[in-house]
């Protein structure tokens, strides 16, 4: 018996090796990276001046807030869910933090009598907004047993409505919240230098969060439970995993990330309006699926999500750079989502 099961293991590992040695399978495994490289090469061929550190850091810093948002959404997709509210939560958190951090000398401040606040306070308020909404989402999924699509469709509208009310200034109507405090802007848009290379702080923030998230996903009980619940909720339940608690925790983390992303994004743009964050959730979901986070749950990696975000950002930036009609860019984005995900699912298709 021992011998037999050993042979079986060998047979399996042989099978695995065989598929690994297969060049096509190898290509499939790295398809995303290959797509990204091909796009970069394509852009460089059309305009060689694209190769510059400046362009590189620009793409990364534009991708940073998107990446933070996408890493929050990714956990929910791993749990077989999704999040339509991420963009609007980011927007609301951003609007509120902007309103609390307008320059005291700016003429049309939302709160004219507000003293200069320490930066940490609006950041914490932004995170609190993210957390409250995310916990409502989590409660809907874990306790009310709603599909994440439904509950987040609802909270998306609630967050949007609240943002509109918050920003509305009758009789003038909604005004953009601009004139942000210098400390706030430089916290986000500032950079430090390594030699002659300028590294925006924003990239550092995103990188630190990515490392923390990768750590949570791979090294902690919460991460392992998240993958187990996403892969087979019933198996997790009969093994004694507290499903409700773990789902709530994953949502809680997503809320923290949305809050941080909202706080950073508004400073990056320089002002906040009611459309801040609009459709960001769709980009985040797109980045996740491009990056190999499976909609059927239980599968995904943080590096994958980051690559997904960068691919999307590259499409915006790189195609702009070579002067592709922006309307075409939207079409290309759609095609990339379809092509990359259909290549990615090849990995898991069992051929008969």
């Amino acid at each position, binding site marked *: *018996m*021992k011998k*037999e*099961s*050993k042979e*079986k*293991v060998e047979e*399996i*590992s042989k*099978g*695995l090796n065989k598929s690994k040695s297969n060049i096509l399978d190898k290509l499939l495994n790295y398809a995303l990276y290959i797509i990204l490289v091909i796009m970069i090469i394509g852009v460089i061929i059309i305009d060689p001046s694209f190769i510059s550190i400046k362009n590189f850091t620009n793409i990364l810093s534009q991708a940073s807030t998107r990446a933070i948002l996408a890493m929050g959404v990714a956990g929910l997709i791993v749990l077989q869910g999704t999040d339509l509210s991420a963009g609007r939560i980011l927007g609301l958190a951003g609007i509120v933090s902007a309103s609390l951090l307008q320059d005291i000398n700016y003429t049309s401040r939302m709160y004219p009598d507000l003293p200069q606040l320490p930066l940490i306070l609006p950041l914490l308020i932004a995170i609190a907004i993210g957390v409250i909404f995310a916990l409502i989402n989590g409660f809907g999924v874990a306790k009310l047993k709603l599909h994440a699509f439904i509950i987040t469709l609802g909270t998306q509208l609630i967050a949007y409505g609240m943002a509109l009310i918050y920003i509305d200034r009758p009789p003038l109507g909604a005004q953009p919240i601009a004139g942000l405090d210098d400390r706030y802007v430089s916290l986000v848009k500032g950079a430090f230098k390594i030699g002659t290379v300028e590294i925006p702080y924003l990239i550092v923030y995103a990188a630190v969060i990515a490392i923390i998230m990768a750590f949570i996903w791979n*090294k*902690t*009980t919460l*991460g*392992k*439970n998240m*993958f*187990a619940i996403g*892969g*087979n909720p*019933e*198996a*997790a*339940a*009969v*093994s*004694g*995993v*507290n499903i409700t608690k773990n789902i709530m925790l994953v949502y809680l983390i997503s809320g923290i990330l949305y809050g941080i992303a909202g706080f950073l994004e508004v400073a990056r743009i320089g002002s906040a309006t009611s459309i801040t964050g609009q459709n960001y959730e769709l980009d985040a979901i797109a980045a996740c699926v491009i990056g190999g986070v499976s909609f059927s749950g*239980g*599968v995904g990696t943080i590096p994958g999500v980051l690559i997904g975000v960068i691919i999307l950002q590259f499409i915006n930036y790189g195609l702009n750079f070579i002067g592709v009609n922006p309307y075409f860019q939207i079409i290309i984005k759609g095609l990339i989502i379809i092509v990359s995900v259909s290549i990615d699912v090849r990995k898991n298709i069992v*051929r*008969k």
Partner: protein
Amino acid sequence: MSGETYLLEMRNISKSFPGVQALDNVNFRVKRGTVHALVGENGAGKSTLMKCLFGIYKEDSGEIYLEGVKTSFPNPRAALENGVSMVHQELNQVLQRNIMDNILLGRYPRKGIVVDEKKMYDFTKSIFDDLGINIDPRVKLGDLSVSQRQMVEIAKAVSYDAKILVLDEPTSSLTQQETEHLFKIIKLLRDRGCGIIYISHKIEEILNISDEVTVMRDGQWIATENAKDLTTDKIISLMVGRELTNRFPPKINKPKDVILEVKNLTGKYQPSIQNVSFELRKGEILGVAGLVGSRRTELLETIFGIASHSEGEILLHGKLVDNKDSATAIKNGFALLTEERRATGIFEGLSVRFNSVIANIDSYANFGVLDGKKMKVDTSKVIEGLNVKTPSQNTPIGTLSGGNQQKVIIGRWLLTDPEVLLMDEPTRGIDVGAKYEIYQLIIDLANRGKGVIFVSSEMSELLGICDRILVMSNGRIGGIEDADKLDQEKIMTLAAKYL
């Protein structure tokens, strides 16, 4: 008061679901260091009783004593922490993760805030070594065969240091050798003082492994006896509540002319079948035997066109047929009853009527609009003709017992009026009484001129109802023989031919 003698005592347990009294005053007692078999037809309440023990259901009334102490687990976690563990009938596993992630699910060891992977590996390895399982704990579960997954699940249950280990149909996907291995493990645990509750439909197995047997029927306790005082017939008659003189119905079908010829069939995506050739006659039941992984299912799938072949041909009535997909196969007169009823057979939440007519749906359409009356008539044919026990045609099929679900699915295929019926493990997880009915049905179908190919892991039923048996060995044909010239030993020899 009874804590000295009984490891587990369940007293007067009752549990009802809307419209069903699932358990009615059941008493069940397990002694330390024994294997206690729990038998009964599907729907007799075995799984419900175990789910009450394990904290998945809460009993309506009654008491549970573990080592003499009154307990009632609010959830599976509490049960596991108190030494009650369970291998579930449906393997509850996370296929995307590796073995050790699965084994330690719900109790990952930690080093600070980090999960201690090394400890996980060592723990899993030691459990595997202890049980003589030779699989690398780092392999992704989805890459294992079903039988290996089953062994992993058993190892997991054992690893909780269980005092009570519940095994619900643990051998349904194991080969005989693997079953032997499992029995060794069970005996090891029994000798360490565990109480093992063993649920199975395989009565030979029960008599082989258990010390005591409790029989349940219709949610009630019927009898508890020493295994050595029991026989197969006695257990069966206790289970069904009447004398069952024969396990197999009389064979009245007579094979006639050849209807199906399969020549040199080879699967396109290996590992699959290789160079398989055979003939099937009208009115014949051709059994297909083989070990798990011998590609029996692939054989059926290739004939039915849901798996592609690179070489070979299929002839029906001497004419070449090209089953390029299942729709073509159905049109050509083939039907496939799939192995995993739950995954690929039933539409769980949908009605008996939907499940009956779905394979034949085109024939009810008038310009795309379905004829409800005709569907009702055909569904009653299925229900009456196959003796399906269901409250109504609108009942979701998932609420019926396994045997009744299987009858509906057989009925579904009969409505397409096939010439060749491919049946993959049609009696898996089905109770004895219902099995007899399924055998009867298969023989009737053959008698009415259908050709039946019947894949099964239970050699006794192949020998009992087939005319000839084809033995698969590692994707090839180990041999084809008349059933009356074969016995279990000869089948095993043929099955091992190309290993």
